[in-house]
C-alpha cells in the first residue's frame, strides 16, 4: 500500500508508534513500519522526511545526531513527552474509529 492510500494523517501516528520503544533514524523508521505491517506499508522517503520535520516542528519528536549500529552518522528521533501523549490520544481514537467501522461493515 502506498502512503497516499493511507488515511490522511495516519503516517504521523505510525511514525510516533515506531518511536515508542526506542529512538530511531529515518531509514530505520521506514524499515520498522514496513516490517511491522508485514511489508504491506511501504513508506516513501519523499513522505517520510517532511513528516518527520513537521512532527519535530510541532514539538512531538526531538532529533539528535548519533552513530548508528554500523558507526555511520545518522539523525535519531526520540518521542517527547508531548509526542507520547499525542500517540496515546491518536491510538485510542484510531481504535474507536476502526471498531466503529468494523461494526458497521459487519451489521449494516
Amino acid at each position, binding site marked *: 500500500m502506498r502512503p497516499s492510500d493511507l488515511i490522511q494523517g495516519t503516517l504521523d501516528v505510525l511514525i510516533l508508534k515506531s518511536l515508542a520503544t526506542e529512538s530511531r533514524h529515518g531509514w530505520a523508521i521506514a524499515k520498522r513500519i514496513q516490517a511491522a505491517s508485514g511489508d504491506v506499508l511501504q513508506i516513501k522517503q519523499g513522505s517520510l522526511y517532511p513528516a518527520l520535520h513537521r512532527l519535530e*516542528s510541532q514539538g512531538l519528536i526531538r532529533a539528535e545526531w548519533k552513530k548508528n549500529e554500523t558507526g555511520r552518522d545518522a539523525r535519531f528521533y526520540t518521542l517527547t513527552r508531548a509526542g507520547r501523549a499525542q500517540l496515546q490520544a491518536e491510538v485510542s481514537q484510531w481504535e474507536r474509529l476502526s471498531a466503529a467501522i468494523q461494526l458497521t461493515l459487519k451489521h449494516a
Partner: protein
Amino acid sequence: MLHRWIDMTRYRFRSLVQGGQADADLDRELRSHIAQQEEELVARGIQRDEAHRQAVSTFGGVERMREESRDARGISVLENLTRDLRYAFRGLRREPMLLVAATISIAVGAGGNLAVFSLAREFMFAAPDVRRPEELVQFRVSHGSHASYQKWQDLDASDALADIAGFSVEKELNWRNGDQVTALIPMLVTANFFDVTGVPVALGRPFTAAEARAEDSPRMVLVSHAFWQNRLGGDSAIIGQPITLNGDSYTILGVLAPRLRSVAGFSISPAVYAPLSRSLVPELQTPANIVRLLGRLKPGQTLAQARTAVDAADRRLGRLIGDTLYAGAQEFTSLNTLVGASGPKALKMVGGFFVLLGLVSLMVLLIACANVAGLLIARGTRRRQEIAIRLAIGGTRSRLVQQFLVEGFWLALIGTVAGLGLTVAFMKLVNSLTLPIPVPMELHLGVDPAMFAAAVVLVFLSILLCGVLPALSATRLSLVPALKREERFVATRRFTARSMLLTGQVTVSTVLLVTAFLFIRNLSHTQVTDPGFEVNRALVAQLGFVRGLPGEDHIGVLQRATERVAALPGIEQAAFTSSVPLTMHGGSTSGLMAHIDGVDGSQHVQFARSNVGPGYFSTLNVRLTSGREFQASDVVGTPAVTIINDEFARKYFNGRNPVGNRMRFEGRDTVYEIVGVVANGKHVTLGEDQRAAMYLPLLQHPEGVEVAFVVARTRGDPSGSVVTVRNAISELDRSASVQVESMRSALKFSLLPSRIGAAVLGTLGFLGLVLAAFGLYALVSYNVSRRVSEIAIRSALGATRGGILRLVVRDAAVLVGGGVLMGLGIAALVTTPLATFLAAGLSSKDPVSFVGTFIAFIVVAGLAAWLPARQAVRVSPVVAMRQS
C-alpha cells in the same frame, strides 16, 4: 504543554538564526539514508556500484522534498522575508536611477519631517536641565504670570511644597567689558534657586540659599558655558574673577553646564545667573510682580495634592493681609511636560506654527512618496512578464505583494537614513545660527532615541505610502497577455492607479504651493506695509540705564544725548522717547474708564500708551493732523498735556476735533488737555488692527526711566551714522549700555515670524513643486514611451507631428488640470486658519497666490509633457514598429 512550547520555539529560533543549517542537516540526513539503503543492498549481495545506483534512484525528487520539509518546518514566512530582502536589494542595485530618484525624494520628505520634529520638540517640549525634573512644578498664583518677591518669600516659608524658587528673565543689566557696555538679559533668581532646581554646573560651584540672600546684597554670579567660551575667553581661571554688572563688581562663582536648557523654556539661554538683589531690581521690596515660581514636590506628593496645598497657602496669606488679590493657584503643571511658561497664548501661537509646519512637511513627504510609488508602478509594469511567470508556476499573490513591500522597505529605509543625514546637517547649521532677536536663545538640537523612533515611524509610513499601491497594481494582471508580452492598450484604461496617483500628487503640491506662495507674499507685503513712521532713513539708539546710582539724571543724559546726535553731520533731526513701536519696547496698552469733555458720563477707552520727548513726531515723519507737538516746555509742573492719534479721536470723540478738550481717568486726579492729533501707525505688530493711541510728554512723566531711546532721522543711508552716533552718546553715562542700529534693523524682531514662515514654507513649497514636477515628468514620459508603437502607427498613417503632440499633451493636461483645480479648492479651505499669521490687507484667499500657483503648475506640466512628446514624434515609424 510548556515543554512542548519550549521545544517548538527553540526549534524555530534555531532554524531562523542558523539560516542554512537546517538545509544542510537535511542534506546530511538524506545522504545518510541513501548510504544505509546501499549497505542493505550490498548485504543482500548486490555489487556496490549497482547498489549505489539503486539506492539513489529509489529515493526520488530531492528538491521537492526539500521544499516540503522547509514548509513543514513552519518558518517559511521569515525565511522568505530574508530572501526577499536580499533579492530586492540586488534588484534595486541594478536600477541605480530608480534608487537615486527614490532616495532623494524620500530623503527630502523624511528630512523635512525630522527637522520639524526636532525643532518643535526642542523648542516646546524639551525638559529643562534640572535635578529630577519629574518632581518640579511650575505654577501661577493670583492671576499673575509673576509673583512679587514678598509673595515668593511667604509661599516658600509655607509648608505647601518641599521648596519654592523664583526666577526672572525679563530684566536687563549692563555688562562693562573694558570700554564697552553691553546689555545682557540675565536669569535673576531667588537665593535658593540652585538648591531647589539643581541646575548643573560645569566649573566652580553654584551659590547657596544661605550666602545669596537678596537682603545681603549678594555680589556673585554664574555664567553660561557659551558666554564663558565666546565672551570671557573660556579660561578656567575665570572662577573667582570679578565681572562688572550695572557698575558693581560681582564674583564669578561658576560656569554652567554646556548646552544647558534653562527653566525659562523656549530655548531661552541667559548669559548670566545672578541672585536677586536691590541693586539689580530696585523695586524688589515693592508689590511689583517680579518672579516666576517653580516648586519641588515633597516626597510622594502628587500634582493634585501640591496644587491644593499651594492654593490653600496663597489664600491663607491673602486673608492674613486682607488682600482679595490672593486668589490661589492657577496653571499648575509639572515642569517636564511642557515648558509653556510664557502662558497659553504664546504657546498657542508657537504651537500653531509648528502644527502648520508639521502638516506642510507631511505634505512634502506625501508628494515624495507619490513620486516613488509612481516609479515603482512603472517598474512593476516593466516586470509584468516576470510577475506573470511567477504567478503561473504557483507563486501566491500575497507572496508577490510581500516582495514588493520589501522593495518599498529598502527604498524607505535608504531614503530615511539619507533624510536623517540631511537633518543632522540642518541641525548643525541651526545650532550655529544666531537669531536676530534681542532675547538670548540657543537651540540644542541633537539626535536622540525619540528622533530615531520618529525616523522608524517615517520608514513605515513611507513603505505604506510608496509600496502598497504599486504592489497591488503590479500583481493584478491577466496572465495570458502578460506572458505573451502584450502591452495593454493605454487608452482602454484612463484611470489607472498611476494616473490617479499623479492627480493626487498634483493636488497636494498645489495646496502646498499656495501656502508657500501666501507666506512669500506675506513677507513682501510686510516689507511694504507702512508702519506710520520713518523706517528707511532713521536710526535708533537704545540706552539701558542703571537705576539707584547716586546722582542719577537719566532725563538729563537723554536730553544731552539728543542734542549731541542732532548736531552730528548727516543727522536731520533727533528726539528721545521711552518706546519705539514694533520693538520689544513698543509701549504699553491700557484700558481705563475715562471722562471726556463733551461726552456724558464715563466710557471705557483702550489704547496704546507711549511717553515721548519733544520733536518725536516730526523726527520720525509722523504727520500732525491738528494741534501741536510736545515741546521742551512741557515739563513737570506745567499743565498736563497729551497727544492722541486719529483712531483715538474717531473712536472716542465721535469725529469732533479733540484739540482743546480735556480728559480724566477714573481714580486719578490728573486732567489732560489734548494738544494735538497725529496720524495712525502700527504699535506692537505689523498685522495688528488699528489701535487707538495716547502719547504723554516724557518730560512730564520722567519717573522710572530704565530703557530709553534716542531716535534720529538721517539725510541718507542710516547705517553710515551708526558709529558716530554711538561715539557721541556712550561717554555721557559710563554705566549705561548703548546700542545703535538702523530703524530697519531694530524692526527685525517684528518681521521675524513672517520671515521664518516665508523662508521655511517657501523652501518646502519649492521642494514640493520640484518633486511634483519630477513625478509629472516621469509619468508623462513613461506613458509616451509606452505609446511609441501607437505613435508610430499614427505617424505612418499620416498623422502630423502637431496632431500627435496635441494628443500626448492633452492627456497630461487632463490629469494635471484636474489635480490643480482640486488642489486650489482644498487650499481655499486649508489656508483660512492661516489668516492669523498674515499681514493686514493680505487675504488668505489672496488671488495672486492662487493664480500664481496655477500658472506655475501649468508651465511645469506643459514642459513635462512637451519634452518627451517631442522625442516621441521624432521616432521613425520603422524603428518603433520593430520595437513592439
